[in-house]
């Protein structure tokens, strides 16, 4: 359950995770250049999982249809590039608008419900979107996917290259900005109210909160970010398939979120990196049984509370410090 601290941490502690993330990106860029295409895909996907965190971790809305917003964002960016302009930033804007509009329209209906009913209806929305995309072949390419569009230079400076350098920098920059934006949004009174609704709707109603209206805002914002994620993935891959609207993507994103921990956005990022890395390496080692590893990790993460991991880690650190300290230091 999302928990917020009373006092804002000092500036250095707020900046440190972003600096570490930037450092990690530089490391990947310079030390693992052959992994850049995969890293770019992970960065784009991380935006999607973070947007899911807004809905699940902050709002407490369990959904398995979040891919609908990702998919329409991807198709919007693809269609824009096919018919109007290949400007990447306009593509992201189109994806954000498409995701937000679908989330707003579906949310008006979905948020009348809670729990399992809400969950099932979110699946229904993504299935409807997927079937519509399949039927509208002349626009979406149907089962063959939407392809053949090109993306212009990023900010007029650099085109996507075969090594994936530009794609990685572009995806990472967009992900970095989205993470900061989402963290900033959820540090507001609006974010606080969302956490309150998640923890106790009855209390929030007694405070005078318009619960459905607040959740609709959250759902729409999350839809916009999911749309950006879809648009980004479409621009990098230069193809949009029906699977971008599918149930499987939503389910995988939920697994990533559980793996990393919901309700603070950093967990969503960590979960995406862990899941995608294991998917990449383990499926190479054993293409038939790699899901066992993910399943095992998931069971462990769910059964062992996160606090226990933290306590175990701090105990190890203490033991390490004692062992490293000079013998006289402990007396």
């Amino acid at each position, binding site marked *: *359950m*999302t*928990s*917020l*601290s*009373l*006092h*804002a941490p000092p500036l250095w502690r707020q900046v440190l995770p972003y600096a570490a993330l930037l450092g990690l990106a530089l490391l990947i860029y310079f030390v693992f250049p052959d992994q850049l295409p995969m890293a770019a895909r992970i960065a784009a996907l991380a935006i999607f999982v973070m947007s899911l965190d807004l809905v699940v971790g902050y709002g407490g809305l369990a959904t398995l249809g979040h891919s609908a917003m990702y998919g329409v964002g991807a198709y919007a960016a693809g269609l824009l590039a096919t018919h109007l302009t290949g400007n990447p930033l306009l593509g992201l804007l189109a994806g954000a608008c498409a995701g937000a509009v679908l989330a707003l329209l579906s949310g008006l209906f979905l948020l009348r419900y809670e729990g399992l009913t809400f969950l099932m209806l979110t699946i229904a929305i993504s299935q409807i979107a997927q079937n519509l995309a399949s039927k509208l072949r002349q626009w979406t390419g149907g089962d063959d996917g939407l392809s053949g569009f090109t993306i212009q230079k990023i900010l007029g400076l650099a085109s996507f290259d075969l090594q994936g350098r530009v794609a990685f920098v572009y995806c990472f920059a967009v992900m970095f900005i989205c993470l900061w934006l989402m963290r*900033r*949004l959820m*540090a*507001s*009174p*609006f*974010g*606080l*109210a969302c*956490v*309150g609704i998640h*923890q*106790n709707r*009855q*209390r*929030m*109603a*007694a*405070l*005078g*909160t*318009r619960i459905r209206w*607040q959740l609709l*805002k959250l759902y729409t914002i999350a839809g916009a970010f999911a749309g950006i994620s879809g648009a980004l993935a479409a621009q990098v891959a230069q193809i949009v398939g029906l699977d971008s609207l599918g149930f499987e993507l939503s389910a995988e994103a939920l697994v990533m979120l559980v793996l990393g921990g919901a309700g603070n956005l950093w967990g969503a990022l960590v979960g995406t990196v862990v899941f995608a890395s294991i998917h990449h390496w383990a499926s190479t080692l054993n293409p038939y049984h790699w899901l066992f590893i993910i399943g095992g990790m998931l069971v462990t993460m769910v059964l062992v509370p996160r606090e226990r991991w933290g306590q175990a880690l701090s105990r190890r650190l203490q033991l390490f410090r004692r062992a490293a300290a000079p013998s006289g230091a402990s007396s």
Partner: protein
Amino acid sequence: MSELLLETRQLRKSFGGLHVTRDINLVLRAGDKVGLIGPNGAGKTTLINLITGVLAPSAGAVHLGGEDVSALSQAQRVKRGLVRTFQITQLAPTLPVRLQVEMAIHERQGTVGGFWKPRSSYSAVQDESQAILQSLRMAGLAARAPVELAYGEQRLVEIALAMALRPRVLLLDEPMAGVPSGEGQVVLDALATLPADLAILMIEHDMDLVFNFADRMMVLAEGAVLAEGSPAEIRRHPAVRAAYLGEEG
């Protein structure tokens, strides 16, 4: 005569053939302290749910400050100054107490939908939140979450949230329910800090408390008003003595 704040007119609620509220007429003026008693199942909490808009009445109306609010949502009624506490504590379990009070203040001020400004930059809200907790002698608990608090302390948080909303009418649903006897005085002290012009309707099973607190009493039985009057009159009322105070004849 002081300002009329809350009025229910022939308020009725039925679930099928079960009539849980029968034509209740209740009047609360500024400064009124009304005690509502009755056995379990008498319809006390249902009455609060009807007044606050959690339940829609089958018939009758609720007026707040002269305005018919029967068709308004719970949120709209809160905005008009109608606030309640719960029989079973309703709090966000892991949110620090001060943040919950801040949430209530943001709600009152209409800044709860603010997207961009971090909540830490609302210094006036933080100061007010701290002041409310200090007035309830809870400043030391500001950083703690309800799951870490004793039940009596959790009841105080409910009162703090109600105070943060600056109500004109406060409906207290069994504020002492579940509070160990040793912690009861803390809740009583908190109630004493409430503004004098606040109209309060208190449901309570602790007869000593409610008789001392209220200046007017209403007794419910099977959804209907059995008796109404001053605490002294209610103490002498034969039907009340027979049914609720355990005396016969």
